[in-house]
């Protein structure tokens, strides 16, 4: 069967199987920036925006994306590059495998909450796991990024 989705502003018709999860469908279609980590919606490396809201795409039926808008990190390349400067300045990118999913969640948080306090920030981002960094460097990066870029929107 086919679904029609808008991915990073481009309308695409994709052939899927009924039970396919969105991560696999996106990766097969060439969006390899969407990583596959845990298969159970826990780690967040597969995060994409669905109509602007971050979701773990590994636990989302591709079928349900029909007619909707998907944004991967490549769809917000300019903002991602800005945030990347802050993340890499702290050395908190590390292996980078969680970074695209983490970065897009940070961008969504910024749009939704502006520059929230630390507890809110940690809570919003809690679904994006990182096994390398211990999170402290990520937190330093997000704080600095939001202080500098607060007010601009994605």
């Amino acid at each position: 069967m086919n679904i029609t989705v808008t991915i990073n502003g481009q309308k695409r018709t994709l052939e899927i199987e009924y039970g396919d999860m969105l991560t696999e469908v996106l990766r097969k279609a060439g969006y390899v920036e969407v990583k596959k980590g845990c298969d159970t919606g826990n780690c967040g490396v597969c995060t994409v925006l669905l109509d602007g809201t971050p979701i773990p795409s590994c636990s989302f039926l591709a079928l349900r994306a029909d007619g909707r808008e998907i944004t991967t990190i490549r769809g917000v390349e300019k903002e991602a590059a800005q945030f990347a400067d802050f993340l890499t300045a702290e050395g908190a990118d590390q292996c980078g495998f969680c970074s695209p999913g983490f970065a897009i969640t940070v961008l969504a948080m910024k749009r939704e909450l502006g520059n929230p306090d630390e507890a809110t920030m940690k809570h919003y981002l809690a679904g994006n796991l990182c096994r390398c960094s211990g999170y402290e460097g990520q937190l330093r990066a997000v704080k600095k990024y939001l202080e500098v870029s607060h007010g601009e929107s994605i």
Partner: protein
Amino acid sequence: MANQFSEVTKSRPKIDGKGLVTGRPAYTDDLAPPDALVVRILRSPHAHAKILSIDPSEALKLPGVECVLTYQDVERIPYTRAGQGNPEPSPHDKFILDRYVRYVGDEVAVVAAVDEETARQALALVKVEYQVLPAVLDFETAADNPTVIHPEPEIHDMFPIGFEPKRNIAAAYDMEIGNVEGVLQECDFVVEETYYTQAQAHVALEPHTAFTYLDLQGRLNVVTSTQNPFHTRRLMGLALHLPLKNIRVQKPRIGGGFGGKQVVHVEPYAALVTLKTGKPAKVVMTRKEVFESTFTRHQMRLTVRIGARRDGKIRAIDMQVLSNTGAYGEHALTVFMVGGSKTLPLYNKIEAAKFGGKIVYTNKIPAGAFRGYGAIQGNFALESAIDELAHKMGMDPVELRTINMIKEGETSEVFKIMGEGGEGVEMIVESCKLDYCVRRGAELLGYNPRRLAYEVAPGIVRAQGMAIAMQGSGIPLIDMGSANLELQDDGFFKLHIGATDLGTGSDTILAQIAAEELGVGLEDMVVYASDTDHTPYDVGAYASSTTYVSGNAVLKAAQEMKKALRHAVADKYGLDPERVVFKDREFLTDEGKKLVSLRDFSYDTLYHNGAKMKTIATSGSYSGEKSPPPYLAAFVEIDVDTETGKIDVRNYVAVVDCGTPINTNLAKIQVEGGLLQGIGMALYEDVRYSENGHMLTNSLMSYTIPSREDVGKLTVEFAESYEPSGPFGAKSVGEIGIDTPLAAIANALYNATGARVRELPLTPPRVLDAIRRVKDR
């Protein structure tokens, strides 16, 4: 110290960072050819069984199925999957496919199909008949159990490691310095306790992945998420019976390793399919497979005896250890030995020491390398016991450590006696700021020995605890790294290294080392790494070796490059090379007269110098004669809920002596990441099984790793320290961070409640139970 460098110590962003964060294709699966056959592995549902028959006929009928391979299709060659030096200190006790399966998750058959869905369906159609055998699941009854896990005659060790498979013993070791029993008898205080550490899962977020293809010359190309491309090539050559020249292994970016990818887990299975079909093939593990069928940390039981004089002098330490290596013996002996070799030297003034025990097979997931590599288990036991001794003696645990711990300029007999599966090397500790680390850590947390615990709310007790640790910097005289440098037109340098960046930033810091020595910038270096065809040999990323071992190799190559450049310029201008100075990308005479810029000379040597034209290239290799330990002092503040047993880590302070941090931010993140993995192991990470050996914790729903909400604060600082044998004074920093949380948190829990928990993790039920037992006393 920091001011003397232009590149080193600077927090340069990782050279690959921006590309990774913005989602460029980078990891093995991102790069796999779209037409690669999808390889899935049928795995054992039994902890121990003999395969009576395998019938692939139904699977082969499914359209799109390319092949089904079983043990009948594979040459029976025992090998080890452990990425280690040659000969490996691990027994050769594994077959790519075998007639016996020895744990739930062991490989049974390999299915290749045109896509994921077909491969998955085909797996279910392979009919296997098993004869289920009794399983050994309790490691304390594994030795001399009537059920023998490895009765097969072909398996062997590479040199004596105490290998006795008929007794379910993968390796054994014993050493003694002095007379422990005699000294303990004379001690005023003796503590004897037994501690248990659990299996921990690595949970690198990128699952193990490999793809293979044949190149134009028919050579097997392997692209894989490995920590050690050269070991992988050697082990695959052995297992697949291929000459090494017919194999190329490449590591692209990899999504974390922590020791979990210091091994050959997926590569042979993709290779089997490519060799059979001639087609590209890939294996991407599911998360369930990563949990059930890779490695964990070795579960251990450690019995410690420590004796001290009334004045606080520790006189003898004995550690007797039982380690569970699971179904196969990868890293069995070496992890075990590190439990002593990287803990005992902390207290180097003892008169007698003993360390020994066995590493046993069980029908559980094999254990392997995992950051900390035995030191973390040993540290929990020793650093808990030291606190127990201090309390018994009525001493401040910090004071007891300060009196006894190792200091700069000292040595330990253990360095010489215990090495990587054999003897070690003698070593004077030339850099050790442990005394500073302890003082500064205490200051940062506000450590107060007279007020180690107090109630902050009804039932909530706030408490402090501490521990110290050491690690190593590579394996001396065994680990070797190399680097090639080459001047390019336009005046930049190619740096080719065998070293393997797992995401730690080693490509970046190695380039910083080269740039520092050459007096150029990081931006003048182009780095290519981890490709057995195109980069020089390196053992790979493990044993805290890259900064020190590979870093020294890069430093040597850069020193040689400086020399080669001076000679080439001298030749061009008819000068004595001693009279040529290379500074700030320019060549001058020793009198300060400008000769030529590096950029112009780079064109000259490749385009303009006629018969004198040449490529200016140098190499450096390094094998350490010592393994200078980094040190760490940790102080933690926790809140214990005495009603529920829940522990909250409020602030974890670590002050680290890693010598010169080559890249201060990247070094700091290494420590912070290590601390959190250690805190996870201390509090809840635990690989658990059902009664019949099925793993219960086979997803991130049932196996929890720390999230960003789980810890209050990590505070990391570095001591000013300079290791004379390291590149620009550097030692390692990759593992040391993980070692202390187990003991430091358990010590804080004792200070909070009087409950000494000697079994990990410190889950609320276990803590609550211990608190209740204290109250009942």
